[in-house]
């Protein structure tokens, strides 16, 4: 009988399927359902620095519109962003506390960072509330075209360093693949103290509606074909990193999970697949993995984890092949 127990960031999970930070993980009730349906761990929906700022702005606008609320010269209005941040953070911490009190599933808190200032106090409170680990979702938007790569990269390390100084629970860093020297950046994150890396963050993308001639949002859910980028990099890095890798984007079925583990990932994070197929799909995925393991004679995940990672593979250059060369030369 296959044993799916996995270790990630030093935590023991009953299986390698983690539900990613998304609308599926934003309340105690939803997390309860995910636990019931077999999820190995959950990443609590991100606390957005931006969202708090927007909420404060929204309140200010509302106050401005309602001619009775908060006279111009009101002290409360002056500090309203402080009060809102407090309230939002309070709600976030409440979910963590309730999950830790009433459920057993490992809970990873998540914070979205868009700047390297001002918010790191959250990390300590998140730890105090009982979160098992913290996932930093960092994307520093390069403003304008003036900053050079190094400056931007340094900000990532700075955030990580600051957070590691403040807390003792494990910290994972989720990044996008858009770096000139991606491999080096990830190795640097490891040496700066990250306990795990999550590859890769998937952004909302713009699309264009040619009928109404305006800009819209492209398909919000991932597709299985999008898995290939993280697959490549998981394989390349798996034996070069001591820390855990969580693979994410486009993992829609049990097969995909197995592929990532073969490449060297410790765990996967899923979201879109559950939006499409429902939460019970977790059980389907787990069943598939178990039955494959049984078929191949594996009792434990470790027996096949990283089997096809680059260093282990007899032909390592297969992961580095970027151009198609001879494969497509004629149109059918």
């Amino acid at each position, binding site marked *: 009988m296959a044993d799916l127990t996995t270790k990630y960031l030093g935590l023991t999970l009953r299986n390698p399927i983690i539900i990613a930070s998304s609308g599926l993980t934003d309340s105690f009730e939803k997390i309860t359902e995910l636990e019931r349906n077999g999820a190995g761990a959950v990443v609590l929906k991100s606390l957005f620095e931006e969202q708090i700022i927007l909420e*404060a*702005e929204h*309140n*200010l*606008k*509302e*106050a*401005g519109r*309602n*001619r*009775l*609320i*908060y*006279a*111009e*010269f*009101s*002290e*409360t*209005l*002056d*500090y*309203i*962003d*402080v*009060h809102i941040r*407090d309230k939002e953070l309070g709600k976030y911490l409440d979910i963590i506390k309730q999950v830790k009190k009433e459920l057993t599933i490992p809970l990873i808190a998540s914070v979205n960072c868009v700047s390297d*200032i*001002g918010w790191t*106090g959250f990390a300590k409170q998140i730890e105090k509330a009982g979160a098992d680990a913290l996932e930093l979702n960092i994307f520093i938007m390069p403003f304008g075209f003036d900053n050079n790569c190094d400056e931007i990269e340094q900000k990532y390390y700075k955030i990580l360093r600051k957070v590691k100084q403040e807390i003792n629970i494990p910290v994972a860093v989720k990044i996008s693949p858009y770096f000139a020297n991606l491999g080096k950046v990830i190795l640097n994150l490891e040496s700066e103290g990250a306990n795990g890396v999550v590859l890769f963050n998937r952004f909302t993308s713009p699309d264009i509606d040619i009928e109404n001639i305006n800009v819209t949002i492209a398909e919000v859910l991932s597709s299985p074909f999008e898995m290939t980028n993280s697959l490549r990099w998981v394989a390349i890095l798996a034996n070069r990193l001591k820390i855990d890798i969580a693979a994410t984007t486009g993992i829609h079925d049990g097969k995909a999970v197995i592929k990532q583990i073969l490449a060297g990932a410790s765990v996967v994070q899923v979201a879109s697949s559950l939006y499409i197929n429902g939460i019970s799909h977790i059980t389907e995925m787990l069943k598939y993995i178990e039955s494959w393991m049984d078929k191949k004679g594996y009792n434990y995940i470790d027996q096949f984890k990283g089997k096809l990672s680059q260093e282990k593979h007899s032909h390592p250059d297969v992961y580095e092949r970027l151009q198609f060369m001879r494969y497509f030369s004629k149109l059918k």
Partner: protein
Amino acid sequence: MNNINEYLKEERNKEWRVELRKSMKAKERTDKMRVHMPEADPMIRNKNSEEVNKGLVLQNAVSEAARCLDCAKPTCIDGCPVGINIPKFVKQIEAKDFNGAASTLKETNALPAVCGRVCPQEIQCEATCFYTVSLKKDPVAIGHLERFAADYERNNGNTSVPVVDKPNGIKIAIVGSGPAGLACASDMAKWGYEVTVFEALHEFGGVLKYGIPEFRLPNEIVDVEIDVMKKMGVKFRKNIIIGKTLTFDDLREQGFKAFFVGSGAGNPSFMNIPGENYNNIFSSNEYLTRVNLMNAANDAFDTPVISGKNVAVIGGGNTAMDSVRTAKRLGADRAMIIYRRSVEEMPARVEEIKHAIEEGIEIMTLHNPVEYFADEKGRVNKMKVQKMELGEPDSSGRRRPIPIENSEFDIEVDTVIVSVGVSPNPLIPSVLPDLNISRWGTIEVNPETMQSSVEDLFAGGDIVRGGATVILAMGDGRLAADGMHKYVSEKVKIN
């Protein structure tokens, strides 16, 4: 509206007004400089609780009143939240009918001595004065004149009691004896209602007593105004918490037909930063209540207050100013304001900031506390602050404060007063599930009538506004009285 304009015109055309206008040429009036309010010496007044503004002397008040041009279209009234007939009372001062001026004030303003002291006239009546708008000169000192008339009447023992209509036997309950409740009670009493004001504390006046310090608004003045209301027949009951001691149903059973809730926004906000619960860190409400309401600075009174040598007050509004200036008077060597934006963004009245600086208050703008530290007994002894710079304005127009990296440093403090706002007292909303409450915890009302979602319940002041001024609260009280009067009259007709 037309009634009011008609009334104003009628008054303006009275003989004495016409004569008065003729008695001095307009140019002679506009050539005068605006009177200067005498102030107590800063280095003396910062050690006592004497009023900072000493009040105009008679000749200067008369002379200032003469500056008023008695405009045919008095724009000053547009700026007044309670609609005082400003030209009339000002001209009465010029005509040396000071008691008359006080009576005129009391037609619309139950607390003229209070408003003359604490109203931000500079953004109200004086901002819309003809001098400000058209002549680009200093406006008529309407606030100082209001105070003069009210003080004159009081000091000469002539405190007038407004005329009240014949009693109609209908009982009205006012919850809260702060400015909103008092203004509402006053109007209802004038119209013959049997009014009872219920107050949770042991003194009447609400924020006028516990919040505003003696050196800005002596408590004695508040008591005189409340006395007038008692003479008008208003009943006052203290130590009654409506919703706890007596419920609204109890009051309905006792025959009260309508309610005005003016329970205020006394719930203090904190910043929730590490160390904020160490000893000797207070909300401005606690600090000011101990000093102003409980006389804690006076050894003859039992309530203690801790106010040390290095006092930091966090915030930039009037309450912060009141707190820091109180701390100075209680012996602080360093009395500091720690405000995260700049002076331009400070919500406090310009006059209060000016007085504070004169008194030796250190205004540290662009600083924000991030953590407090304490000694082995848990008493705060140090505060870590971070420097800020200002970015883009937020939706309120104030520039956003952005922390500057690695700019933190420590300041020695032994007392900290947190003055970053208040929220509405949650008691009454919590006992009335049918009452619609906004996202800020305020009672939602129809802005024309101040009626809430509970038909016999009206509300005004900070419980509706979240945290505003005395005069706006009074305006609400008056508007609600209007609304209640119409509501009760219709109900009585139906029955």
